[in-house]
């Protein structure tokens, strides 16, 4: 709570000084009093950043040196060498835990170093024995032996590296063959850490970065897993995934300070939803579904339905709690479901309906944002609403699937609509 207040205050201070409410000296005294964003805080951040960089550089340097693949070294010597950096890192990390070293910089630095030393050891072995089929098991072994470091040694920087690692593993497993679904289990291993950090300091830099990485990794991993199984239903799947992401951010992180990218879930979710919505206004986007034969019940279908239900449930929750704000965007999966069912039922005939449906949806989305912005005098919302409508206009203007006359008439009618609204608004004043 205190930290949040400090973040808020640090943003307000320049403004207060500018308006003459506080003198610059008073502002400085406040800065010193609340410490968190003063020189001390800066020094801590610098120390962490430098030790992270140092560890990454030294660790990767060792990996590079080993990658040289010294031809004259016997396999026995290689075996010994593969343990040296690992043992050094382990001894240092163990010593730190034993002595109770609590500095952020130390924890982050030694954690990364240990993780990289583990990777160096495994990769030297792969190289010595020419194991190529190995990258899969190599990556996974490395990641699973590294994730406990985050919990035991305490370096949070392990988490994003681990997330990248298991996401790559999922991609490789898909092309090499294997059970990609384990990805969900592996990503869940980071949750206790992210949960603890988030409880300690909900909107601290660390927690926000970790949640962002987690969300991105989860979406990419899920895309890889589901991509094979349900190619044609991707609009449904991804609108559900992004809607859930968006709504979780909207509902459980609604108290986030509104600026400075502290709302990763909302940002990623809404960006994803908008991109899909725009893409869904093209006929070609739905054509894959026409060829689709009947559905059989597979785990992927069940999961998709579960995601869809979750998105709809959260939309309703959002509707109840925030009086509608956000639930229009969040309920896009419903529209995707309608579109999918329409195409499956009426095949070619429904393609045009979907185009109109999603165009109207985006238009209404832009318009509601615009109106809400005008009502609350929120420039950000006004701009967002205008941007959405403008992109829609541009996209439709160049859409060669529609005849010139249809586009022309639709544009003029919409324009007249805006003009009339404006006249009505002006008269009301």
């Amino acid at each position: 709570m205190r930290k949040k207040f400090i973040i808020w205050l640090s943003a307000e201070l320049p403004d207060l000084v500018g308006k003459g409410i506080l003198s610059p000296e008073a502002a400085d005294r406040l800065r010193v009093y609340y410490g968190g964003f003063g020189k001390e805080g800066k020094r801590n951040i610098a120390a962490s950043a430098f030790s992270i960089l140092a560890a990454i550089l030294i660790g990767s340097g060792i990996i590079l040196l080993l990658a040289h693949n010294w031809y004259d070294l016997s396999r026995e010597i290689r075996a010994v060498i593969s343990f040296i950096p690992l043992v050094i890192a382990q001894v240092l990390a163990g010593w730190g835990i034993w002595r109770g070293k609590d500095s952020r910089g130390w924890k982050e630095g030694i954690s990364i170093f240990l993780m990289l030393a583990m990777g160096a050891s495994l990769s030297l072995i792969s190289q010595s024995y020419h194991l190529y089929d190995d990258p899969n098991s190599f990556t996974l072994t490395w990641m699973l032996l590294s994730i406990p470091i985050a919990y035991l040694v305490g370096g949070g920087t392990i988490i994003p590296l681990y997330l990248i690692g298991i996401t790559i593993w999922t991609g490789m497993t898909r092309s090499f063959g294997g059970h990609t679904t384990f990805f969900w289990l592996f990503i869940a291993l980071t949750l206790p850490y992210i949960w603890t950090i988030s409880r300690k300091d909900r909107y601290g830099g660390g927690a926000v970065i970790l949640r962002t990485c987690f969300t991105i990794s989860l979406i990419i991993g899920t895309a890889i897993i589901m991509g094979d199984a349900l190619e044609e239903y991707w609009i449904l799947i991804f609108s559900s995934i992004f809607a859930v992401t968006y709504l979780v951010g909207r509902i459980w992180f609604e108290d986030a300070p509104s600026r400075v990218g502290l709302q990763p879930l909302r940002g990623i979710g809404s960006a994803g939803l908008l991109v899909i919505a725009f893409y869904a206004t093209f006929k070609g986007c739905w054509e894959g579904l026409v060829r689709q034969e009947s559905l059989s019940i597979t785990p992927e279908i069940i999961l998709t339905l579960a995601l869809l239900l979750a998105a709809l449930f959260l939309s309703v929750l959002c509707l109840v709690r925030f009086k509608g704000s956000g639930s229009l965007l969040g309920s896009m999966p419903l529209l995707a479901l309608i579109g999918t069912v329409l195409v499956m039922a009426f095949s070619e005939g429904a393609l045009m309906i979907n185009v109109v449906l999603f165009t109207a949806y985006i238009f209404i989305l832009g318009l509601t944002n615009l109106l809400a912005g005008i009502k609350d005098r929120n420039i950000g919302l006004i701009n967002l609403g205008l941007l959405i409508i403008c992109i829609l206009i541009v996209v439709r203007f160049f859409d060669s699937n529609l005849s010139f006359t249809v586009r022309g008439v639709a544009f003029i009618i919409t324009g007249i609509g805006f003009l009339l609204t404006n006249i009505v608004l002006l008269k009301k004043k």
Partner: protein
Amino acid sequence: MKKRYWIFGAFILLAIAQIAVSAIRIRKWEDVLRTGTRIRLRTVPVDPYDAFRGRYVALNFEEETVPLSFGQDLKRREEVYALFQKDEEGFARIEKLVKDRPSEGIYLRIKVYHPISSKNQIRLRFPFERFYLEEEIAPAAEKAYESQSKDDKRDAYVTVRIKNGYGVLEDLFIGDKPIAQFLRDEKKTEKKKGEGIVNPGNQG
């Protein structure tokens, strides 16, 4: 205070696990290399421009393509066992593919890369596709090759040790010379020509 001991204890376990995993891997492959059966596998003739990519030689094997009749019902990415037999020249040839681990014979666990019914072939993927080389050697080798004509493909093969379905590359031979010696000899002839390999460059 007590919590810290628990964490330290858990960390010791992690450290042991980390070392053990590396040690077990070394032991496993070292055992295959020392006690496994040695076979010779012919590689697809080395194309000088394709073989050396940076720090390893990309290997393709003749035996990675077998007739479709070896396994009509095999699927992409399926794991099978390849049973080998020696031909008259002493090179290993795949005799058949089986789905269950054979009880005897020289066999290797491999993956089906792609059954191609149009060509009546199955493409397999051996677990060793790269022969790693020292950083400076690979580009030097590439240069040495470049001085030869492009069509001058050379016969090459590898020796592999096989045990319990696992296989480890032992050495790569080009024209009956181990790769290291082949490269050394190439270098010498280059020098004799008075050209020498000045700078291997920074490829890779």
